[in-house]
Structures are given as C-alpha cells and as structure tokens.
C-alpha cells in the first residue's frame, strides 16, 4: 500500500510537470522558479538542520566501541574501531562515510528449528547501498557539464571514465553506444530499483517501510528513467538544455524554445528531490557526520569532558545522613563511625567537661 501511494505520488508529479509545460506552457515556473526555489530550500534547509542538530549538545561521550580500548602498553589497542585519539576517530569516520564500514559488518540471522541460531555474512545491502551512493555522486558531478562553460577537465575525465564500458545496442528504438553508455546513470537506477525490491522482498523490512521510504526511491528511479530516456531514446535538444542550465547557473535564466517536456519532468523531479531533502530521512547525508556514537574519541576515563547543562551540584544521600540512619547498628557491628553514639546515661556532659 505504502509503495503504491508513493509511486502514484511520483507519477502525479511527473504528469504535473509534463502537462504544466506542454499543456499550460508554464516554462518559467518549471524551468526557473521551481528549480531555484528547490535549490534554495535544499541549501537553507540543510544548513538549518545541521545547525539545529549542532545546537543540541553532546553531554556525554558515548562512542560505540568496536574493538580493544587503549589500556596498558602491552595490550594492542584497535585505534580505529575504538579510537583513543582525534586522528583515530577521523579515520573511523572516513571509513564510515566513504566505505560504509558498519554496514559492511552486517550479518544475517539464520534461525532454524531446534532452535539453532546461526549467522552468515550479508553484504547485499552494503553493496546496493555503496553502488547507489557512488553512482549518485558520479551522476551528479557529471551533470556539471551542463552548468559550466568551458567544462572543467576533471568533469570530462570523469565522464570518459564513466563511459569506458562501451556497449552498442542498435535497434530501431534504442541505440545504445552512440552516445557512449554512461554507467553511473544505469547503476543509479538499477541500485535504486534493487533497494526498492529489497524493501518489498524482506518481510521485516516491508513491515517497517513508510511512504517516506518508498517515495525517494521512486523519485530517484523516475529521475534516472527520464534521464536515460533523454540520453538514449528520446531525441532532446541538448544545445537548448545547456542554454537553459547555463542560464540558471549564471543567474540569467534563458528559456529556449524546443526543449522537450520530458526534460521538464526530469528537472521537476530533481527539484522535488532537492526540496524534499531537508525535511526527510535523506538528511542522513549530513547527520552521519554528527553521530556521537561514531565521531567521538573513547577517552573519557583519561580526559575530563564537561556537560554544559549538568552544572548544579547534585543532591545525594550523604554519608552523614547514612550514618545517622544506621549509627547504632554500625557501632554494634564494629564498623567505624564519624560521630560516636550519644551515651544513654547522660554522662556526655561530664566527659565534655573533662576534655
């Protein structure tokens, strides 16, 4: 159900853009206003989110320790899985962000009758996720060719690496190979699809999935499909598109005629993705850097840290109050006391006088 609703939402968005441009001729709205608004929402929104998170303090050091701590010199510590220095924590974060270290660790439960419980390595999620994210990144960077003039050499280089894998499919409808096949776009669409299939395939994951989980996947699949269609199937006016995108990039929007409605569908879905970003789980992109269980150093026994809000002295049951409660029993049991028992025969005064 959630998956259908999300798919419908994306289809409706696509139709809105196509009809809006081809039917109502709202090219300025879909070509200029919405893209600008979306990008603005993205940047303002993400900065706001990060500031909002950062405003909440990290009162305690709570790194998840995944290896031996630094203790005595003859015990070999694991400086990355359990960092005792800032450098170790940075390397840990790099492994986390660049290679998805924690996800790589993933194990799969194998529950058999008996009951016997076993665990086997489970790398599919890691594989889908990492290919998805890197192809997303490459696709994004590759698109800089539309926003730069001259196109930087590294973007050209990236694209030539991306298209190293040449396949030629020549049919009356599809002519892949001319232009060169770009892997990143296909992988992006493919991995988004596999992530979607995985979400539907595994009963537990389907059970926890919200529309908010399917929607961005459908959105990205929609973006990939429209992009691929434009590149390989539908003839679009690339020169006109470049004129439009350069206009956006240089803040002097131009709307050449003849740019297909399909392009506006693509652009609108991208705009929706950008605008949706700061309000959704997609903020994990920025949030992962702030995660206190991963980015902190495990040294709180060696170095003092300060909690910014727990500054008032704590009220606790003092030893004096404890002894007041139990003095008689303590004396009887031969335990030392700070304050002796009051002698019962009122000889205390005499004693006091003698001293």
């Amino acid at each position, binding site marked *: 159900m959630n998956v259908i609703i999300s798919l419908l939402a994306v289809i409706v968005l696509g139709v809105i853009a196509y009809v809006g441009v081809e039917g109502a001729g709202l090219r300025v709205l879909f070509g200029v206003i919405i893209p600008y608004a979306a990008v603005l929402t993205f940047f303002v929104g993400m900065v706001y989110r990060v500031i909002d998170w950062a405003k909440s303090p990290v009162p305690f050091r709570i790194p998840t320790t995944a290896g031996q701590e630094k203790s005595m010199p003859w015990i070999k510590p694991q400086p990355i899985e359990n960092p005792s220095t800032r450098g170790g924590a940075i390397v840990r974060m790099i492994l986390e962000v660049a290679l998805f270290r924690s996800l790589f660790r993933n194990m799969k439960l194998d529950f058999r009758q008996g009951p016997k419980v076993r665990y086997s390595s489970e790398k599919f999620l890691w594989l889908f996720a990492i290919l998805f994210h890197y192809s997303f990144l490459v696709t994004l960077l590759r698109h800089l060719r539309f926003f730069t003039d001259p196109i930087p050499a590294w973007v050209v280089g990236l694209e030539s690496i991306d298209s190293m894998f040449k396949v030629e499919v020549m049919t009356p409808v599809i002519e892949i190979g001319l232009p060169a096949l770009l892997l990143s776009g296909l992988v992006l669409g493919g991995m988004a699809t596999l992530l979607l299939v995985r979400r539907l395939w595994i009963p537990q994951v389907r*059970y926890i999935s919200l529309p908010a989980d399917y929607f961005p996947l459908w959105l990205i699949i929609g973006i990939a499909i429209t992009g691929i269609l434009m590149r390989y199937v539908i003839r679009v006016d690339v020169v006109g598109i470049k004129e439009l995108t350069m206009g956006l990039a240089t803040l002097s929007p131009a709307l050449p005629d003849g740019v297909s409605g399909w392009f506006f569908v693509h652009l609108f879905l991208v705009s929706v993705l950008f605008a949706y970003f700061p309000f959704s789980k997609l903020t994990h992109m920025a949030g992962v850097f702030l995660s206190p269980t991963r980015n902190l150093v495990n040294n709180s026994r060696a170095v003092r840290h300060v909690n910014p809000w727990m500054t008032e002295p704590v009220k*606790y049951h003092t030893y004096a109050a404890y002894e007041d409660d*139990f003095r008689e029993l303590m004396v009887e049991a031969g335990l030392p006391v700070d304050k002796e028992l009051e002698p019962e025969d009122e000889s205390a005064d005499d004693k006091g006088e003698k001293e």
Partner: protein
Amino acid sequence: MATKLSADVLGNIDHKPPKQGWMDTKPEFLPGTYLYPVNPESLKAIGAPGAREWNPTESDWKLPADWQGTIKAGIKDRLNRFRSFKLFMDICVRCGACADKCHFFIGTGDPKNMPVLRAELLRSVYRQDFTALGKVFKKMAGGRPLTEEVIKEWFYYFFQCTECRRCSLFCPYGIDTAEITIIARELLNLIGCQIDWIGTPVANCNRTGNHLGLQPHTYKENVEYLLDDIEEYAGVRIEPSFNRKGAEILFVTPSGDVFAEPGIFTFMGYLMLFEHIGLDYTWSTYASEGGNFGFFTSHETMRKLNRKMYAEAERLGVKWILGGECGHMWRVVNQYMDTLNGPATFLEKPKSPITGTVFDNAASTKMVHITEFTADLIKNNKLKLDPSRNDHLKVTFHDSCNVARGMGMFEEPRYVLQNVCNNFYEMPPQTTREQTFCCGSGSGLNAGEYLEMRLRGGLPRANAVKAVHEEHGVNMLSCVCAIDRAVFPALMDFWVPGVAVAGVSELVANALVMDGENEREYNLRGEEIPTAGDDDAGEEE
C-alpha cells in the same frame, strides 16, 4: 521460577511479521512477558513523580493529570539536551540492518523488538508533533498521536530492551537504540510508569548504598560468612577492613556479589587476591553498590547514585578507586562518571602499589577495573598461580555488552583467563567481542516475573554457549558482570544444562597459591577439585 516454556516452543518462533500494520497491533500483557509496576513507596523515597498504585493488565493506568503535556514537554526538553536523541529521531532510513541483531527479536519474533521499530514507537510521536512533514501529513509521514495506548506500548517494549547496543554496531549511522530507550524510560519515569525491579533498587541504593537494601551490619555479616568459607576451603583467614579511613584504595563492586551464588564466589576471589598481594584497601558499606540502577531511570538519578563513590573516596581519604566485575557499573564509569561528578581532584592518578604500573587510561576518573589490575599483576609475575586446579573446567568467556560496546575491554579478561586455566575456548566469532550477545536480562530486567522473556532474550547467547559446550565440552561460562552472574545460571539450566557460571576473579582465586594455604581439595564452591588421578579412577568405574 517455573516456566511453561520449552525449547520446542521457542524452536517455533516465527520471525515473519503479522499482516496487520504495527500501529494497529497492541501489546498483550501476558504473564512472563511484562514487568511489575514500581512500588509507589520507592518512587516517593527518591522524590520521583507519578507514585500510585496501578496494574499494567488493567485498562486504566491511572496516568497523572496532563500526562500528555508532561511527555511532550519531556521530549522537547531532551531534544534540546541530547544531540544523540535529536539526530537519531531524524536520520534513520529504516534500512533494517539492525532488525535481526536484537536478542529479543531473535527470541520472540516480535517485530517491535526490531531496534528500528522499537525506535519508531517513539519516533512516530516525535514526527507527528515535532516535524514539519509530520504536522502536515500525519500518518502518511509515519506520525501518530500520543495516546494512552502508546504509553502502554512504550512501557512494554522499552522495558524489553537491555540497552546492549548490539544494533548500534551495525547501524550505518551509529543510531544507538540504547540512547532512545534511555530517553524513553526517562519519559515514562516522568509519569511514574517505572518497573519495580528498577525503582525499588534505586530507592535502596540511595538510602542503604546497595540495591538489596542491605544495612551496614548485614553487609559486613555477609562478608564474614564468605571469610569463613574461604578459611574452610583454602585454609586462610582473611581480615578485611570496612569504611577504613586512610586506606590507599577504595574497592567498589556490585552488591550482587556479596549475597548470592555464584556472585559470592567472585567476591571471595577479590578478597583472596587482595590478601595475596597485601593490598592496602577498604570496602565501604555506604558506597556498597557499583551497579548503577539510576542508569535505567534518568541521567539525574544515575548521577545521584554515582556521586556516592567519589564522596566516599574523599571522606576515607583514599588515593584511588578499584572497581569490581560489573557491566553497567563500568558503562557508567567509562562514559559518564567523570562528566557527572568529576573532577576527582582529591584522588591521585591510579598507580598499582604492587607493580608500579600507572594507569594512564584512568588518569581522570581515577578508577581502575579489577580485570585490568589483575592482568597487570599477572604480566608482572606478582601472582603465584597453579592453573591446573581449574583443569576440570572447560571455560568460555562472555563479553558483557557494556564492557564490550561501551568501553572496549576485550583482551584483559582473556589474558587473565588464559593464565589461570588451561582449557579456554572461544564462542563463535559472530557472538563475541564487539558482536557479543546480551544475557537478555540486563538494564534492570532480571526480575523473576519476567523469566519467560529473559529466556527468550538469552537464547542467542545460550546458543553460542551450546555450540562450545557440544564441541569442546565447555562447562563454565565466565564473565565480568554481576547481572550476568545473577541471571545466567537460570538461563544455562534451561538452554545448556551442565554449564555453570563464574566471575573471572573466582577462577583467579581458584588458581591462586596463597601463603599459608592448605592443600586445596575444595574450590570456593565447596566442590571437590578432581585431580588427574581421580579423573582416571572415575573413568574406570
């Protein structure tokens, strides 16, 4: 503590979620699966709100007036005080990597025990009331209103999490369900929805120093019984001191070690070790609980109880503190103590008086773990050990979650064990060290009425023990956690009969060759130590 469970029943656990959506599925408060509510007197004793008589099985929980306002204000307050909470509410992508990592999910098949869904129980309320999309799209955005049903669900499931952090290890963003459970329990505490096995120990720890409410003379008496046992089995009379000013070191251990088997054997182990090396130390009856039950209540209560350790160290004028074998105690010491109640400027940087080793890793808290301390003694050849006395034991080691994923002490206990016993076997690697499985009864869930759920939660750990029991004949599960020692015997009897439970210090003491000791015929449990010859004789019979 009888249970109707059998291994067959547990063998038929179905991990497939029901057809019905989780928001429409309500928990059933069946005996054995929920915990008794706190005695109102215990809440009153520490001035906690919401003290009342109520019963989870009844429909009316007698929630305090404006409980919704209290909870929402509580959420807002904590969003502003804990980045972990705010971030973990926002960035989960529900990838499900954590789903099958929870021992309660494995043992119950209940989808709300998937860490991601456990967090959603709270996140859905957060979304509806605290996020833009949730305010607009409500259920479509995964939001739901805060109703009394939600509170019941929270009570059921947030006391069905042992805060072991295993899920956190596998989360690509390090989302730690323990953090979410900690906050959720704080929220429940604001309206008096606490369980008795936490609330009453908290009140006891506050007043008497330990969770059982042992008064000072009883504490001392209990120790004296153990001294008699040591004399009987090892032939050495030990005279420890209590509340002694001017001792060099204060020793604090969970009070579980002083009153029940097999914890008492670990306690005897500490006593014998300190006697053997001639340590100048003292016990405190006032700070006689290392295990911090406040940690399962709120950060403020944790601080209040933890404060007593430093207060006592200062009053007695010791140089530093040595801590016994305990899971949560060390999580608190490692992650919170110095921040909560430091700086302990009245103490010195810990230095072993026997080996001269300076513990730089404890330079600020001034508190050393007994297993570090023992490992250092062995490394420096300060202990006379005869590991063959443990030859009848085939030992495995359970990494307790808090010491593993909240601290990272893996090598020290293994080093100690390999020096005090000759037969040591590791459990399967996916179940040890950072991937260790919880005992299933931690974070205050070790109540008698909860045995069924504990057995279910303990299934993955027990299964790993079973593997080494069958393969190598392992018959002793060792650990460095008092809750483990308290709960594993029942779990082992059920899942892996023939495996006993011991603290590492007990095995150290068994191997310890003390001055003036007798020919050790009995171990600390009063069991005859089989010699090689006896073994052969036994086999021939």
